[in-house]
C-alpha cells in the first residue's frame, strides 16, 4: 500500500507572529518557516506504518510556493520515499484555500492511487481544519478526522478519534483519509545520514495548471488583528486577600 501525506509550509510555531500594519495578514518576510506540526505527525505515522510492514511507500506532497521544497526535503529526511511539489503561488503571502488544495490533492491522488492519505488535522497558520474533510468528499472516500491512533486491519483502518469529552474508535474502509491530531505520535528527529540521503530522493515538480485547478481566492480577508495584550496581574499579601479578589471577580 502507498501512503500519501500532504504537508504545508507554515510559519514556524516558535516564531512570534507579527500582523502587517494594514491588517491584511501576517508578515512572513524573513520569517522562519517550517513544516506544519500536525503534518509532521502525519509524516511520522506514515513512516511508522511502512516500518511496521503495513505500507510500502510514503509519498509527501506540498502545494504552495517553490520554497515548500525545503519542507518536502524535511519530510524526506524524516524517512518519506519521494516527494511531489505543486507550485501554485509565487508570493509567500498567498495562502492557497482549502478547496483548491483539496482539488489539487484529488488530482495527485488520481495519479498516485494511494491506499491511505494521512494529513494534519489543520494548518497552524489559518486553522481552517477543512482540507482533509473536503478531500474525502471530493474523492468519495471514508474519512477519520482527529486521529490519535491508527491501526491497519486488512482493507480497513481502525482509527481512534479525539472527540469532545473522550475518544471514539471507528473502523473505516480504505482507501481513506485520516487527519492526525496532536497525540497520534511524537515525530522523530531526522538523523544525519537520512538528511544526507534526502538530497538524492526524487522530488517531482508540478503546477496547479497540471491538474486544471483554479487557485484564485474565494475568500477575502477583511481584517487580521493581534490578540489583546494580557493585563498585568495583581500581587496579594495573603490568602484572605486572594480569596477576596477571587470573590470580587466572581470566580468563586
Amino acid at each position, binding site marked *: 500500500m502507498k501512503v500519501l501525506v500532504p504537508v504545508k509550509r507554515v510559519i514556524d510555531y516558535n516564531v512570534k507572529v507579527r500582523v502587517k500594519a494594514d491588517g491584511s495578514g501576517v508578515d512572513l518576510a524573513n520569517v522562519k518557516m517550517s513544516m506544519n506540526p500536525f503534518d509532521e505527525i502525519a509524516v511520522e505515522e506514515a513512516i511508522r506504518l511502512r516500518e511496521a510492514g503495513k505500507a510500502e511507500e510514503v509519498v509527501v506532497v506540498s502545494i504552495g510556493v517553490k520554497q515548500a521544497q*525545503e519542507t518536502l526535503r524535511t519530510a524526506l529526511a524524516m524517512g518519506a520515499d519521494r516527494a511531489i511539489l505543486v507550485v501554485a503561488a509565487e508570493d509567500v503571502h498567498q495562502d492557497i484555500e482549502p478547496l483548491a488544495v483539496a482539488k489539487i490533492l484529488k488530482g495527485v491522488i488520481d495519479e498516485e492511487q494511494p491506499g491511505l492519505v494521512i494529513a494534519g488535522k489543520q494548518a497552524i497558520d489559518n486553522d481552517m481544519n477543512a482540507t482533509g474533510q473536503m478531500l474525502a468528499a471530493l474523492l468519495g472516500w471514508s474519512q477519520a478526522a482527529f486521529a490519535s491512533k491508527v491501526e491497519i486491519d486488512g482493507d480497513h483502518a481502525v482509527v481512534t478519534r479525539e472527540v469532545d469529552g473522550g475518544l471514539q474508535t471507528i473502523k473505516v474502509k480504505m482507501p481513506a483519509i485520516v487527519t492526525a491530531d496532536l497525540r497520534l505520535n511524537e515525530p*522523530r528527529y531526522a*538523523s*544525519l545520514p537520512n538528511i*544526507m540521503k*534526502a*538530497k538524492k530522493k526524487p522530488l517531482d515538480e508540478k503546477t496547479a495548471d497540471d491538474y486544471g485547478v483554479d487557485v484564485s481566492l474565494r475568500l477575502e480577508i477583511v481584517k487580521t488583528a493581534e490578540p489583546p495584550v494580557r493585563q498585568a496581574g495583581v500581587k496579594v499579601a495573603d490568602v484572605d486577600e486572594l480569596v477576596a479578589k477571587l470573590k470580587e471577580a466572581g470566580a468563586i
Partner: protein
Amino acid sequence: MDFRFTEEQDMMADVVRGLLADHCQPADLRRLMASNEARDSARWAHIVELGLGGILVPEDKGGLGLAPVDFVQLAEAAGYAALPEPLVENAGVALPLLAALVPADHPVLTRALAGEITVALAHPANPMVADADSAGAILTVAGDTVHLTTPEAAGLVHQPSSDPFRRLHTLANVAGETLATGAQPALDAAFDRGALFAAAQMVGIAQRCVDLAVDYAKERQQFGKPIGSYQAIKHHLATCQVKIEFARPVLYAAAADLPNGDLHSRARISQAKLAATEAADLATRTAIQVHGAMGYSWEVDVHFFLKRAVALASWWGDAALHRDRVAARVMTQPLGPEFTFARES
C-alpha cells in the same frame, strides 16, 4: 564563491537546535545539577540516534565523512544550550583522531560510532581531561605517541571545575595500547578542531546570553517601563550582538579553512578562538549586569553559560597562545585584501 551554508548543513543544524530546545533547557540543566550528575542518558540517547558520532569520521572508517564546516553550527548549538554531554569533544575532536590512527574494525572505534561509548582525549594542550570518568576509552599522549586506555587503568584523579557539567581529571597513568607513533600531525589537527569547536560553542554561549538578557530586559520594569527601553541597557546589549556578529564569520571561515592545515588556516582558527572568547566574555558579563543584583545568583540561568565560557576560554589554548599563532601568520606572510584567500606554506 558561495559562502552560505548548504540546505543540508542548515537542516542538520535545525534538527540539533530543535532537539536541544526540546531536551536541554535551563530547567533540564537545573534538574541534572540537583542530581549531581554530568550526563542525562535520555538526552544522550536522542543525540546518538541522530547519528552524530561519526560526522567527522571518514566514510571508509564507518563515519559520515563530513567536514568541520558541517559540524560548526552543531557545536554552536551545543554552546547555545550549554549542553552537558560531550558531543563536541567526542564527535568533533576525539573520534576523528581515533579514526585517523586505527583500522575501521577497531572495537573501540566501532563501539564509539555505534554510540555505545564516548572517547575522551588527554591532549597535551589541556592540563586535564574532560569527561574522562564517563568515557569508555581515553586517548593519551606521550611525546608524539598516542595510547588508548580505559578510565579504570588511567587512575583518574578528580579535579575541581568551574562548570558543574564538565568533570575534570588528571591521569595517574597514561600508558596503554599504543595506537601510533609519530602522530604529531594528527594531534595538531585534533588541536585545531578542539580550538575551532570551542570557539563555536562560545559564539553559541554569547548568543544565548544576549537572548536571555534581551528577554529579561523586555519583561523587567523600572519607572513604569521595561528596562530594555533605556539606552543604558540596550546599548550594552547591542555592543554584545556586534561582537557576536563579528565573531561568527571569522568562525565560519575558520571552519571552511581547517582542512588545509597550514599557517593560514591555523591563524584563522586562532582568530576565531580569540574573537569568540571576547564575545562570550562580554556577553556573559553584560547578561549578569542586565539581570541586576540577582544576575550572579543561581536563580538566574546565566551562570550555566558563564561557567561554560570560563571553562572554554583557556581550553584548547589560551589567548596568548592563539595570539602567537595569528602573529606567526601576520608577521611572516604578505597582508592585504589580495592575500585574504591566498594560500601559503
